[in-house]
C-alpha cells in the first residue's frame, strides 16, 4: 500500500473512533514508522477489545501496536491538600 492511501485510512479510523457507535475520544492514533500506535485509557476491557477489533478491520494490512489501558476503578489512597 502506498503512504497516501494509508494516511486516509488512518484518518477514517480516527473518525470512526469519534463517531456514534464507538464514541471513544480518548484513544490516540499515531503513525510510528510502518506501524500504527494506539494509546489511551478505556473504562473496561470490553471497550478495549472493541477498539482492537475495529482497528483490525479498518486498518487491515497495516501493523497495529496497541498500548491501551483499562481505567482503575479503585478509590484514591490519599487526598490532595489545597490549603
Amino acid at each position: 500500500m502506498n503512504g497516501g492511501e494509508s494516511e486516509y485510512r488512518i484518518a477514517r479510523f480516527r473518525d470512526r473512533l469519534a463517531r456514534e457507535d464507538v464514541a471513544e475520544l480518548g484513544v490516540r492514533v499515531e503513525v510510528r514508522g510502518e506501524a500504527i500506535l494506539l494509546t489511551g485509557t478505556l473504562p473496561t476491557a470490553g471497550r478495549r477489545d472493541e477498539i482492537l477489533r475495529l482497528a483490525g478491520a479498518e486498518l487491515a494490512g497495516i501493523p497495529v501496536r496497541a498500548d491501551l489501558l483499562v481505567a482503575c476503578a479503585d478509590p484514591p489512597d490519599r487526598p490532595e491538600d489545597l490549603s
Partner: protein
Amino acid sequence: MTSAASPAFSGKWDGSVVRVAAVGDIHLSPDCRGLLRPSFETLPLCADLLLLAGDLTRHGTVPEAQVVAEEVRDLGVPVVAVLGNHDYHSGQEADVTGVLTEAGVTVLEGDHVILPVAGGTVGVAGAKGFCGGFAGRSAGEFGEREMKEFVRAAHRAAEGLHRALTEVSADGCAARIALTHFAPVPDTLAGEPVELYPFLGSYLLAEAIDEAGADLAVHGHAHLGTEHGMTAGGVRVRNVAQPVIGRAFALYHLPLAARTPDAGQTSDRT
C-alpha cells in the same frame, strides 16, 4: 487552619476543610453497570460531596443515564453534576438530566447549589461550558452563520458560569467551586495534541471564574491531559477526567474561608 498531616479516611473530622470528591468522563453504558459503585460506596468515609464533571454516558441515552443513576443513588453524600458533550449526543439531555435528578443528583447548567458541610457552606456553580480555544488562539465571532453560532455558544456557556458563580459569592459560601466539562485553561490539556486545544475548552470560562471568584475549578473532557493547572487569576484548576486521575474519583481538601453574604469580594477583587 488545616494541619499539615491529612487526616486519614476516618470519621473524625475537624471541619476546617471541605472534602471534595470529583470525577468526570466515566462514559458509562449498560456494559459497565456497577463498575464504580464499590468505590463510590466509600465516599461517606472520605468526602463531603461528589462532583461529576460531565461525559457520564457514552452517547447520552436514557438507558445509559440509568446506569449512571444506579452508580450514584443513595450514596450518603450529595452528588452534583454537569453534563458533557457525550451526554448531549442523542439530543436527550433533558431526559438524561431527568433520570439523574430522580436519583438525587443535582444537575447544574448555568446555575448553582449551596451545600451545608461541617464547617460552613459550599457553593458549586456548574455549566457544561464549550470549546472555542484559549486567549490569542481562539475562534472569533465573524463570518459564516455556523462560525458565529459556534462562538456565541462559547459566550453563552461562560455567561451561565459567571452568573452562577456570582450567586455563590453573593451567598457568602466558605468554599466556591466552579464545575464544568470543558476546560477553562490550557494547562490541564498538556498531553493532548496542541491542534485539538480549540476543541477542548475556552478561555472565556477562566475569565468568568476569575471575574466572579472561585476557590477551585474542576473540569473533565481532556482524557489525555493532566490533572493540575491554574487560571491567570490564581484559581486552582483540576482536570478530573477518569483516564487522567486513574482512580474512581480524585479527592481534594479545600479550606473553608470565613465569608459573609454579599462579601465574596472581601479578600480579592473589589
